[in-house]
């Protein structure tokens, strides 16, 4: 497989991955919500792509391997597309989901355990 390019410098790729990791951790510090999404999930996609091509050598395997992996992912998205509108729904004509478990939880990040003690007391 990789005799095509015997000089692949794996350490350099690893360094790129570590830099990407640092960016994704630093992203939320800017506190811009859309930027956090990009740095968190966009970079996860980039990292996954780098690992799949440079470490797993998926691009050196026959084409159908890539198609297979993509097909599996597409089916998962299909699953989410078909079920999301039901899972998102919290009430209907004769029913509603009881939300006691989280509605008393402060929506803002709390690093002390007080939030949990309070929440545990609520059910």
């Amino acid at each position, binding site marked *: 497989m990789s005799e095509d390019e015997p000089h692949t410098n794996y350490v350099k790729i690893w360094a790129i991955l570590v830099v990407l*990791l640092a960016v994704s951790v630093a992203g939320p510090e800017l506190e811009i919500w859309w930027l956090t999404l990009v740095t968190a999930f966009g970079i996860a996609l980039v990292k*996954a792509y780098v690992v799949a091509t440079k470490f797993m050598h998926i691009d050196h395997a026959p084409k159908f391997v890539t198609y297979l992996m993509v097909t*599996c992912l597409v089916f998962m998205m299909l699953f989410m597309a078909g079920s999301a509108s039901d899972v998102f729904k919290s009430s209907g004509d004769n029913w509603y989901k009881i939300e006691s478990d989280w509605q008393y939880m402060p929506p803002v990040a709390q690093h002390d355990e007080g939030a949990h003690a309070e929440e545990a007391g609520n059910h």
Partner: protein
Amino acid sequence: MRPIATTRSAAGMPTGLLAVWWIVASEIVIFGGLLGAYIMYRLSHDAWAGHAANTNTLIGTTNTLVLLTSSLFAVLAHQAAEKGDGKKAARFLMYTMAGAVAFLCIKGYEWNYEISHGMTITTNTFWSFYYTAAGIHGAHVIAGAIIMGIVAKDAAKGLELQRVELIGIYWHFVDIVWIFLFPLLYIAK
């Protein structure tokens, strides 16, 4: 005594490699279902951002770094195995396994801290997902490390060197799963 069937490769790649890709495909949908369910719950429950704030980003980052590094060793082992150097490949696989052990120890410390501070699997559904997803991933780490030990034992004697690549592909897949778990559980708050 391997059947002749195993040595054929009508599809253009060795049988073991083909099978590993199929295993990866079947794992994609297992984790896909789990993470898909998590994402849908997460999007419909605003308060989960608050729960997620209690996860320890530093530990999560350290574990990502550990897994990325272990993946590096796995691919270096593959490189050594391709050159026919079984001893070197086995040594790199040992480093990868050390990474797996470090990952599990850090995970154990993290879980121990969280459970002792009242964040258990039944606290609420966010924490249920947190422990279930990381737990299933952890089971894959353990299984991968055990298989890697078996492969390394043979590789050190120069046997079955093609297996180094196969366990490497599995290991990189486990790494990719963590690459997605990490932002889902630790970054998005």
